[in-house]
C-alpha cells in the first residue's frame, strides 16, 4: 500500500498564491488560528526560507510524540485527537482521598514529561515525586508543614514526605528559591512524576 506520487504541476495562479509571502499584521494571526481550529486543522507548519507548508487535519492525526506536541502547542492550539489515548491518563482516586488536581481540574493529560502550561509556570522549577506513595506536608499529624507558598527554600531542604511501603521518604528540594505553589494536598496519593511544588528559582 504505497502512496502514489506524481510530479506536481502548479498553475501560475497557484504559484503566486503560495510563493511570495511577506511580513505584516499580527492581528490576523488569531483569526488564522481560529480559522485553523474551526476547520479542525491539527497541524500547520509554515517555513519561510524556501517556503514550506505543512497542513494536517486533526482527524487524520497520528499520535504526536510529546516533543512535537509542545512545539505544536506553542505554534497553534493543537487539537490533539490521537486515536486511543486515554482522556485522563493518571486517574488515581482511592476511596476517601481527594482526586489529584489533574483529574479534578481538567481532562487534560497530566504527564510527568509534558511541558507545563506556559502561562502558569514559565520560568518555574517543578519538583516532582520520585516515587509512588502518599504525600504528607508535615513530619507528623498536627505539626506544621515543612514549607508553604511564599517560603524561601534551599537545595536539599526537605519539602514534604512521600510515604511508600510504610517508609517515610523525605523529598528534598532540587532548586533554591521561593515556593510559589503546592500542587497536592496532605494525605493525597501521588504517582511517579507527579508535580508536587513549583519553585521560582532565585
Amino acid at each position: 500500500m504505497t502512496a502514489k506520487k506524481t510530479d506536481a504541476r502548479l498553475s501560475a495562479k497557484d504559484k503566486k498564491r503560495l510563493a511570495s509571502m511577506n511580513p505584516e499584521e499580527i492581528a490576523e494571526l488569531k483569526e488564522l488560528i481560529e480559522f485553523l481550529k474551526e476547520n479542525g486543522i491539527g497541524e500547520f507548519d509554515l517555513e519561510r526560507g524556501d517556503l514550506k507548508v505543512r497542513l494536517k487535519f486533526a482527524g487524520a492525526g497520528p499520535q504526536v510524540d510529546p516533543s512535537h506536541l509542545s512545539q505544536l502547542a506553542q505554534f497553534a492550539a493543537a487539537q490533539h485527537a490521537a486515536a486511543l489515548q486515554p482522556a485522563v491518563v493518571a486517574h488515581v482516586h482511592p476511596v476517601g482521598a481527594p482526586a489529584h488536581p489533574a483529574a479534578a481540574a481538567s481532562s487534560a493529560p497530566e504527564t510527568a514529561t509534558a511541558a507545563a502550561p506556559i502561562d502558569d509556570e514559565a520560568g518555574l522549577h517543578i519538583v516532582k515525586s520520585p516515587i509512588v506513595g502518599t504525600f504528607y506536608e508535615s513530619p507528623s499529624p498536627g505539626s506544621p508543614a515543612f514549607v508553604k507558598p511564599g517560603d524561601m527554600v534551599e537545595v536539599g531542604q526537605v519539602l514534604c514526605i512521600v510515604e511508600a511501603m510504610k517508609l517515610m521518604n523525605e523529598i528534598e528540594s532540587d532548586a533554591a528559591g521561593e515556593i510559589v505553589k503546592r500542587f497536592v494536598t496532605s494525605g493525597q496519593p501521588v504517582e511517579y512524576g507527579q508535580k508536587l511544588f513549583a519553585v521560582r528559582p532565585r
Partner: protein
Amino acid sequence: MFRKVLIANRGEIALRVICACKELGIRTVAVYSEADRNSLHVRFADEAICIGPPRSAESYLHVPAVISAAEIADVDAIHPGYGLLSENANFAEVCRASNIKFIGPPPEVTRLMGEKEKARMAMKKAKVPILPGSEGVIQSEGEALEWAKSVGYPVILKASAGGGGRGMRVIRSKDELPALFQAAQTEAANAFGNGDLYMEKFIEQPRHIEFQVLADQHGNVMSLGERECSIQRRHQKLIEEAPSLQVDGKMREEIGKTIRRCLEQIGYQNAGTIEFLMDEDGKLYFIEMNTRIQVEHPVTEMVTGLDLVKAQLRIAADEKLSDIVTEPVTIRGHAIECRVNAEHPEKFTPSAGRISVFNVPGGNGVRVDTAQYAEGFVPPYYDSLIAKLIVHGKDRSEAMARMQRSLEMFVVEGIHTTIPLHQRIFADAEFREGKFDTKFMERFFEREKARLTGLPD
C-alpha cells in the same frame, strides 16, 4: 470475590487480566511506566498509576513502586501476569506481608519450583517421569560407561560448575565415550577450574509439550490437557497448539493423574504449567514447572471453553475448583496460536515505533489478544510481543487454513512484525504434517537458505 485488583504488568496480558476482572465485576488498577502512558491497559483500567520511568527495573520490576501503588489504590489483590514479577517469590512474600493477595501460588511453592534440582526431586518423588541424570558427579570413564549403559545412548555430559555449552558433549555410542569424556573433563577444568562432570539422558529430537493445571486452595488439582510448543527460535516459542498430535486421550489422562497426585503433594495453588520433553518414542520427561499463567494459555481456553484468568482470580478468592469448572473438561477441535512480535521477520531485529495501520482479523474461530492499536506506539524497552493471533477449528487442518487467512488479513504497518515469518512456516510441508521438534526452526531456516541459494532442499 475481590473488590479491586492491581495488574502488575503491561501489554496484552495486562489487558487480558483487565478483561477477566471486568467480566467478574472487579475494579481494576493499571500500573504503567512513562513509556506506556498511552497503552490500552491504561485506557481500559478503572484507575491507572504511573510507577516509574521506562526501564523495567525502575518501574514494572520495582517492587516498592508496585506495592506502593497497590497501597494507595487500596486493592485486595495483585495479578502479576507472566514474566516481570510473576515468578518472583520475594514479591509474593512482600504482597503477603502487605496484606495483599498475590494471585498465584504461595511463595514457598514458587521458590521450590524455581530451584531446578529441588523441583526435579519433588516431581520424581511423586512419580512424574524426569529426564534420567546421574546422581551427582561421575568420577571416571568406567562409571560413565556404566551409567550410560543403564539409560541407553545417546547421553550428554555436562560440567557441574558450568553452563553455556562448555564441557558439554553428546555421546552416541560407547566407543565414543572415553575420548569425549576426557575432552569434556579437560574443557570443564580449563573453563571453570573444576573438571567435575555429570550425565543426562540425551534426546535427539525432543518435542516441547506442556500440561496446563489449575489448583484451588482447598487441595484440589485439575489437569486441562496439553499444549504442543515445539516451534521455537532460540528457546522462544513462536507457535503453540492444543491438543498435541502426539498425545492421545489415554496418555492425557495418565499424565493428568500423575500431575494431580504430584501437585496435591506439593500443595500447589492457582494456575501452572508442567513442561515436558517428549522423546522420539513418545515418552515424556519433566523439565520444569511455570508457576504462573503462560503466554500461550489461550489455545487451552479455545479447546476447553474455559477462562483460565478468571479461574485464577476465583481460585485466589478462595473458590473451589468444583464451582469454577462445573462440567467435565473435554477437548473440542484444535487451536493454534501465533505470537506476533515487533521484529523483522528475517533478521529478527526489534522494531519499535509508531503503528500506522493495524487491522486485526476477525470472523469465525479467530481470537486476537493485543494491547496495540492504529496510531499506537511500540516502545523499545520491553519484549517484542505485540499480539497473539489464536484460531480454533474443528481439526488441525481447519485451524491451519483459518490461521493462514487470518495472517493474510492481519495488516500492521509502520513497524516490522513476524507475520510474514508465520506465513512462511504455515506454508512449510514439515510443519503442516505436524512432523516437528524443538529443532524445527533451525532446519526450517536451513531449508529456506538452501532454497534461496538454489541448493537442493
